[in-house]
């Protein structure tokens, strides 16, 4: 795999596996910075919103650093943004995990828990497209919302593997932990986002 040179800005909310995300981009040859400064996130050529932990703690972290509006603005203006796991869910309207907490609302979907018929949390590799992606989640979006394209995986019925619109890519799985397949997906996102970015 040929290396890419790109500047990646990781939104550091304090509730994410930033070490793994950072390492995955560095392996691709990117320079990586972590920040919770809204101005730096707004001006970043390529921004990543990672996240593990609960929906409520993720939203609290975004709001306390005045990052919520900046992330919404990036999606609305089609400035490149990659959401990972909770980072995808935070872009939605709400989550069953944290009733009464508003999400960022740029994806018109509600996040719900996997049915009780399947192992929860889903820890492991599940099929997406032509490969396998690593998931670590108890909640998910069940349907691809209007206005977005994407792919589904299967765990107690179909659920959203990733969503795409313009230069925004939001993955329920962890591309940074999904081996060579995940690395290739990150590389493609960087290349297409850099080319198509209006920012």
């Amino acid at each position: 795999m040929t290396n890419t040179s790109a500047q990646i800005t990781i939104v550091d909310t304090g509730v994410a596996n930033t070490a793994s995300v950072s390492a995955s981009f560095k392996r691709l040859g990117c320079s990586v910075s972590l920040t919770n400064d809204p101005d730096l996130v707004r001006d970043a050529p390529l921004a990543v919103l990672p996240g593990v932990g609960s929906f409520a703690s993720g939203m609290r972290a975004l709001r306390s650093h005045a990052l919520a509006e900046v992330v919404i603005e990036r999606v609305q203006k089609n400035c490149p943004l990659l959401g990972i796991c909770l980072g995808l869910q935070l872009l939605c309207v709400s989550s069953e995990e944290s009733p009464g907490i508003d999400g960022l609302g740029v994806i018109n979907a509600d996040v719900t828990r996997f049915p009780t018929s399947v192992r929860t949390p889903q820890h492991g590799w599940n099929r997406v497209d032509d490969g396998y992606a690593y998931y670590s989640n108890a909640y998910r979006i069940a349907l691809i919302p209007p206005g977005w394209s994407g792919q589904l995986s299967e765990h107690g019925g179909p659920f959203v593997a990733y969503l795409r619109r313009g230069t925004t890519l939001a993955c329920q799985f962890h591309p940074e932990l999904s081996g060579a397949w995940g690395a290739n997906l990150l590389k493609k996102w960087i290349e297409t986002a850099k080319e198509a970015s209006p920012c």
Partner: protein
Amino acid sequence: MLTRRIIPCLDIENGRVVKGIKFANMRDAGDPVEQAIKYELDGADELVMLDISATVRGRATALEIVHAVRCVLPIPLSVGGGVRSVEHAIDLLHAGADKVGINSAAVDNPGLLRELADQVGAQCVVLSIDAARRTNAIGWEVVTRAGTNRTGIDAIEWARDAESMGAGEILLTSFDQDGTRSGYDTALLKEVRSVTTLPVIASGGADSAQHMFDALEAGADAVLAASIFHDQGTTPNQLKAQLAQRGIEVRQS
């Protein structure tokens, strides 16, 4: 469909991979970074690193090793061994672990899992259970400190309570089977499977694809092994090919 995982385990002491039987007779088995790269290329779905260092200096080295492995490893990394506090667990996550296994400390302080889960999310929290058959009764009890401390806690009840305690996964090691190469304790796995919906990683006793098949049939979501990889040079991909032939869903890379 969610596939079953094959997970090599690296025992780390003072920055080196070591191997032994029943936590004893350790000998050097190589560099953790080199081994991590090799296992990933050979089809490992995840790696577990257990720090068995007994000294403060050894544990500090483990943080550096976690970071060094993280830099090269594009699959999940779970780290355990001697994790006694929320601070220690968070240090490991910051160094690059994706999950942290808590064993003895959860017995001493069951509130530790919840405290950690509230800060980092339950999906980062693994309850490691070392279970031994009771000597004078049926069932299994939790043992700690490399098996030297028999706690009297019922291992099945302990597994049942794992989710409410804050864990997102169970690493279930049979103390009786560990190092014997005679197969996982499938009776233990079936009992644990019946009381929790959390993912369960089977550990202790693996020597063949047949053993792994038996554990997966007994309800394990993943199988962990060490000597089958270290000593025999069998690769995860070879085992997966055999499991796939028998109808087990695995990630073929």
